[in-house]
């Protein structure tokens, strides 16, 4: 073995190790296993220095045996590093895919919720940015740039957090025992009144986007409905695009409405007026704020956005219009129990946040 290689004739293992080191670098070993890779690099530098020193000796005394062993050892070390790297990357890839799935679920959930509450600052803008960043992360993963992809996830979270911050106060009502109890009471009173007086009554449940027609206290027909862009909110003033919550009755019927047929309700009622005055006194509404009115149940289509009215498909409106009359009670509530869709969505979001904090 001694004197096999001249200064220009290098051990073949050196080229192999150099190639291996390049492959490891390309595979981003310096990012995934920085300490181990640094060690490997240090050993490689040492082996190269040893080779240089050996080359400096008088040719008759050169012995490349130990140098070759050093490079062989390095090759083995590099192979082990490659295997560890592969495992590390697989782990990261799988964790990233899980994270993507969880973020996508959250985006989908928030997307549904922001259809009826877009709020200010515009929550949909943040939601779109979150979705964009998630798409970026997915594209980076496709290019095998796992670390760059991973760095996008907290940015997605930041935008989603802004959406949640905007939504939580709105959705919290649908989880709050006092609100639920009040809505339950109103619903029960409406059912009882319908039973006792043997009349039709209308119960509108926002969380379910449903209008239930009651007769003798029993549901006889359920219609899907739509609201305004702030449909999840209780109406407080004119032009807030919210739908009022409370106990009302029909005060007018319009067979030739611009929106097919319409049933006018007595919003604002006494309670609405008291609440409006209270909020105004407290300075929670603008000085020029007015209470609004002309809230109707009308046709036009359940998928249409209203300014606070309740919209039905024309066929449903046709049916409903002729079943009810002036004086028919109309009760609008947020939800009829604790396990409503919005409360469940909120719980789901809170659970996801909790899981993230304590994985």
């Amino acid at each position, binding site marked *: 073995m001694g004197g096999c290689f001249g200064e220009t004739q290098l051990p073949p293992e050196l080229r192999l190790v150099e190639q291996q080191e390049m492959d490891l670098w390309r595979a981003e070993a310096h990012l995934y296993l920085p300490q181990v890779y640094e060690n490997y690099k240090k050993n490689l530098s040492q082996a190269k220095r040893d080779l240089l*020193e050996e080359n400096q000796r008088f040719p008759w005394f050169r012995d490349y045996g130990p140098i070759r062993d050093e490079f062989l050892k390095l090759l083995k070390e590099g192979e082990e590093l490659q295997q560890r790297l592969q495992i590390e990357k697989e782990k990261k890839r799988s964790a990233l895919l899980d994270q993507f799935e969880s973020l996508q679920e959250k985006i989908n959930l928030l997307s549904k919720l*922001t259809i009826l509450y877009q709020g200010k600052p515009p929550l949909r803008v943040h939601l779109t940015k979150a979705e964009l960043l998630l798409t970026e992360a997915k594209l980076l993963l496709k290019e095998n740039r796992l670390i760059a992809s991973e760095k996008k996830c907290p940015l997605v979270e930041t935008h989603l957090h802004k959406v949640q911050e905007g939504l939580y106060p709105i959705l919290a009502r649908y989880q709050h025992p006092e609100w639920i109890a009040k809505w339950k009471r109103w619903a029960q009173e409406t059912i009882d009144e319908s039973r006792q007086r043997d009349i039709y009554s209308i119960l509108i449940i926002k969380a379910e986007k449903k209008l239930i027609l009651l007769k003798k206290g029993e549901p006889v027909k359920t219609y899907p409905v739509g609201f305004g862009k702030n449909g999840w909110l209780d109406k407080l003033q004119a032009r807030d695009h919210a739908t009022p919550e409370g106990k009302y009755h029909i005060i007018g019927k319009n067979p030739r409405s611009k929106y097919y047929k319409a049933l006018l309700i007595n919003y604002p009622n006494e309670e609405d007026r008291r609440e409006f005055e209270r909020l105004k006194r407290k300075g929670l509404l603008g000085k020029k704020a007015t209470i609004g009115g002309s809230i109707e149940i009308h046709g036009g289509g359940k998928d249409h956005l209203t300014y606070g009215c309740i919209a039905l498909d024309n066929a449903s409106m046709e049916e409903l219009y002729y079943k009810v009359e002036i004086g028919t009670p109309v009760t609008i509530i947020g939800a009829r129990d604790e396990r409503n869709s919005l409360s469940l969505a909120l719980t789901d979001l809170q659970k996801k946040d909790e899981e993230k904090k304590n994985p």
Partner: protein
Amino acid sequence: MMRTMRYFLLSLMILVLLAGCGKKPTQEIESTQSAVNAVISEGLGKYAPEEEKKLKDAMAAAMDEVKVQDGKTFKNYDKAKQMLADVKKMAEEMKAALPAKKEQAKQNALSALEAAKSAVSEAKALLAKAPKGKGTAADIQALSGDVKGLEDSLAEVSGLIEKEEFSEAANKANALKEKASGVSEQIKQALEKVKGAKPAKK
């Protein structure tokens, strides 16, 4: 005595000659290092990371050779000098090729931005066809927020290009194009839903 003196002088001359060959190439090290630093500071790592690694490795190898000679009694830095010269040449060649690489990355980012712009414009044009205010579909109202988000992000891509973050800009623009196409599709579906139905109010 004369003979001894002659041997002494000869040995001295040889020693002086050897010492002359063994002078550490400090100037070469400095000029090579500065050529390497120059090309790295111009963004070699950003536009050609593999080249940056090769350059750094070559510099380290040359410095290893210098260190080996540093530790010897009879130093010979000829090989180290050659290696340093090679590294310097490599750094200068890489520096010369860098503007073209930068330009290529810039063009890639700009063309990705153009594609994203046109996808966002398509979404905007579709949205413009939808009914406004009262009677619009809830989905469409929400999607207008999405389009606003897309427009904001287009500005972010332009900002990244200005900051010469071309790779990041191209990636963002590609994501933007994908999302804008999705939004266009959703707008089309929402428009289909409202077709034929009467508008709602209040």
